[in-house]
């Protein structure tokens, strides 16, 4: 009895026989609905939420000003120049696309692996994915310089001059990969949200809410005929999103790896980028979920067990990324190619060595503390590590982009890269965009998949016998035999 009690309080205890509970406290279906909907339905905006939105909003405003400034004056206001012609914009793009991978990992891959603990965090991660893709898509768009003709990246008709995009270019693959990813993530997110939007509709007290959530929920009424289709479709969507998520960051890695540049051209890039992407995304999920669960009082639903599992995934992907770093370095030496080796020595000992070692520390060394159970279940520790990982993964892209470019084959054209204040403000501004959208999501949409959480509660799986023998008496009771014979022509 004591052991069971213990599990209820701290469900991160390892117990090979009893799986941990995924919903703690004395909750039933109604209280779960109540807890999640309360966030959306509370009349007054929470002060902390308002402050956060204020900060994010002003950063977003900065971003808009900076974009206007860049477009108005030209790309010269950025720190780009020969030899480093890809700077912050590409670093930020890869960073945000990487962040976007956690959502699909949690919602699709863990779904396929029947990891039921995903249910209380998948909605947050999916929302994060979508907003991160917005941030990511922004950078190539402004990087082209003439943002108003960005539609040229798509094949469109009428096309008087037969000028089509170059389909053999990895940059165009990016357009298709990231575009597909955005659309599929949106569908996945929205499809999962339909039943919960119906919940909000049914609880709505004002006409405006009723109409808005009513339209958004498409008239969902929870019919098991719909559930059957929904579950089949959801499974297929998960099966589609899984290879998609691998492909997206692989294609991003192709941007670099198809080139002839040492430091970029290496065959391990696709899986290495995917692992890194998931790594950074998971870290941001932890960074966001830790404050959310305490501010919005969701500790019963997002439990320590969930966080511990996330940390284990962070540790795993950290090791995968470390493996890639090691193999890359080894092969640079093994290749016998002097320029290849130089790039790596330059990374580790050159003028950007500080960025390289910061990356190694944050991505490979720091997450190793998660080997220790006490630390991976410690809220403050995991929060710090997750932020370190975010920093480290940003610097990973910085190292890949900048250090490979700044000293290329010709020593006479070596140079250094310095971001301008515009670069830095745009980076900060992209966080403003992300957090503005994310905060609005938290307040106006159900942030936890209510219907899914109910499905993993013990109450949803009755232990009592549900078999039923249909007696003739019951049949009698159901039938109106006169009507039946009158309607079907069968008399009994």
């Amino acid at each position, binding site marked *: 009895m004591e052991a069971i009690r213990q599990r209820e309080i701290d469900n991160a205890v390892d117990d090979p026989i009893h799986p941990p509970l995924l919903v703690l406290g004395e909750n*039933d*279906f*109604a209280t779960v*609905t109540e807890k999640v909907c309360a966030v959306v339905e509370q009349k007054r905006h929470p002060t902390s939420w308002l402050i956060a939105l204020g900060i994010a909003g002003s950063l977003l405003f900065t971003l808009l000003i900076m974009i206007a400034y860049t477009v108005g004056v030209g790309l010269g206001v950025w720190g780009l120049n020969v030899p480093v012609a890809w700077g912050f914009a590409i670093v930020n793009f890869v960073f945000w696309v990487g962040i976007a991978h956690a959502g699909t990992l949690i919602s699709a891959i863990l779904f396929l692996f029947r990891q039921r603990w995903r249910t209380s965090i998948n909605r947050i991660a999916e929302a994060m994915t979508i907003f991160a893709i917005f941030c990511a898509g922004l950078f190539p768009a402004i990087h082209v310089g*003439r943002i*108003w003709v960005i539609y040229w990246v798509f094949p469109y008709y009428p096309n008087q001059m*037969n*000028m*089509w995009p*170059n*389909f*053999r*270019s990895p940059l165009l*693959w990016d357009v*298709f990969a990231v*575009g*597909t990813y955005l*659309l*599929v993530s949106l569908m*996945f997110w929205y499809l999962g949200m339909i*039943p*919960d939007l*119906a919940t909000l509709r*049914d*609880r709505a007290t004002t006409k405006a809410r009723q109409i808005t959530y009513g*339209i958004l929920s*498409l*008239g969902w*009424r*929870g*019919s*098991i*005929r*719909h*559930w*059957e*289709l*929904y*579950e*089949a*479709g959801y499974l297929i969507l998960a099966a*589609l999103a899984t*290879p998609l998520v691998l492909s997206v960051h692989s*294609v991003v890695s*192709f941007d670099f790896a198809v080139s002839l540049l040492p430091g970029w051209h290496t065959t391990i890039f696709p899986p290495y980028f995917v692992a890194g992407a998931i790594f950074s995304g998971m870290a941001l999920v932890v960074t966001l979920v830790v404050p959310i669960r305490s501010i919005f009082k969701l500790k019963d639903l997002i439990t320590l067990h969930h966080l511990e599992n996330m940390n284990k995934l962070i540790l795993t992907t950290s090791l995968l990324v470390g493996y890639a770093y090691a193999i890359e370095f080894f092969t640079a030496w093994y290749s016998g190619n002097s320029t290849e080796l130089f790039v790596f020595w330059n990374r580790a000992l050159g003028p950007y060595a500080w960025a390289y070692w910061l990356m190694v520390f944050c991505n490979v060394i720091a997450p190793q503390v998660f080997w220790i159970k006490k630390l991976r279940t410690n809220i403050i520790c995991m929060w710090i590590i997750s932020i370190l990982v975010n920093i480290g993964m940003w610097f990973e892209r910085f190292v890949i982009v900048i250090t490979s470019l700044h000293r290329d084959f010709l020593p006479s054209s070596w140079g250094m890269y310095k971001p301008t204040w515009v670069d830095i403000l745009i980076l900060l501004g992209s966080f403003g965009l992300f957090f503005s959208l994310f905060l609005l999501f938290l307040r106006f949409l159900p942030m936890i998949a209510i219907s*899914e959480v109910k*499905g993993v509660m013990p*109450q*949803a799986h*009755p232990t009592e016998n*549900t078999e039923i023998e*249909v007696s003739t008496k*019951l049949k009698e*009771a*159901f039938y*109106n035999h006169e*009507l*039946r014979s009158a*309607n*079907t022509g069968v008399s009994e």
Partner: protein
Amino acid sequence: MSNSKKVSLSIQEAQVERPVCLLAEFESVAGIIRATKAIKQVGFRHFDVYTPFPIHEISGLERMRVTIFRWFIFLSGLSGATVALLLQWYTNAFNYPFLVSGKPYFSLPANIPITFELTILFSALGTFLGILFFGGLPRFAHPVYRSNVFKRVTNDRFFISIDATEPAFDPIKTKDALLSLGASTVDEIYGFPPSTYLLPKGLPYTLLILVAIAIVPLANIALIRSKSSPVPRLSIIPDMDKQQKLKAQAESTLFIDGRAMRLPVAGTIARGELREDDHFYRGKINGDWATTFPLTISEEFIKRGQNRFEIYCATCHGLDGYGHGSTAKRAEELEQATWVPPSNLHDATVRARQVGHIFNTITNGIRNMPAYGSQIPVLDRWAIVAYVRALQRSQRAKLEDVSLEMRKELEARRKG
């Protein structure tokens, strides 16, 4: 008018008699599973179950539809792959082929990423739209919504509705039976009164006006497109459409001669165009026609000359050089008064001409013969001269000029 009223009345009358369905509420998962199983076993078909989350024990009512749905997704994926491949082939290999980094126009490895992405995109769209289509969603009006307790279906209650279309449906008996299965409440749901089918009064008019307004810009675009206008195109974002520069062949007030394009300084020679070598470029040595070739002659060179001769010269001078080329023959046939017959290259005068002179004739023309200098490169002109010399010699060749084997053959021929 009166007719429709009658119909609506009769619907209302029908409602009074019979509910369209019964809605039973259950409080537990076990309860709903048991009740659903019972109803299935009793043999009912026209019923539906509503739950806040999927319950696998009672699913399986729509197997067939799910199978079709899966095939639908498979086909959408297939169409995505086809569209992607066709698009890439059409744009980059067919409509406007262009080479990129030495890869083939239609290079499959480079097309795989986009083919993959579009396959996934189309399948996902198929899945999402398929759920809506096969589930008959969105559907904003449904009889069950008329029950007040039904609101809890998305929270913590479970419902079964049995349609009145069920053959053995009896409002009272079926209701009792549902209660006996453990339903906490059973509601009778009546159809919608006809008035609820009507749209709000202003709505159709508003929509009509909006549609009418929406046509205006389209009509305006169509109108403008069909007219021509002297006013230059309005560019919202000018890009580099208008630049402060003078275009070729344009006028300019800046210079006295009024030309925007400036002439090069007198004596300017373009790169590689300094034709200093008189012998090579003009066939002259110290002002006289050259009697020697400015280069050494090989058999290949003469063959090249023959090839060029047959292209440029033979149409008039004839393949043999006697001046009976097809153009000349045709002109004679037509009895053209202005026609000057081409020279016979085997004439004594022509034979006596220095090679430099012949070269000059090809370059600048003579009498009616046009100049070929602009068409035939210098080296080729010399090759033609060499060939003309060979041709001339061939017509006055002696037996000693021919190789030994040929001599035998020729002698044999003469005898035969």
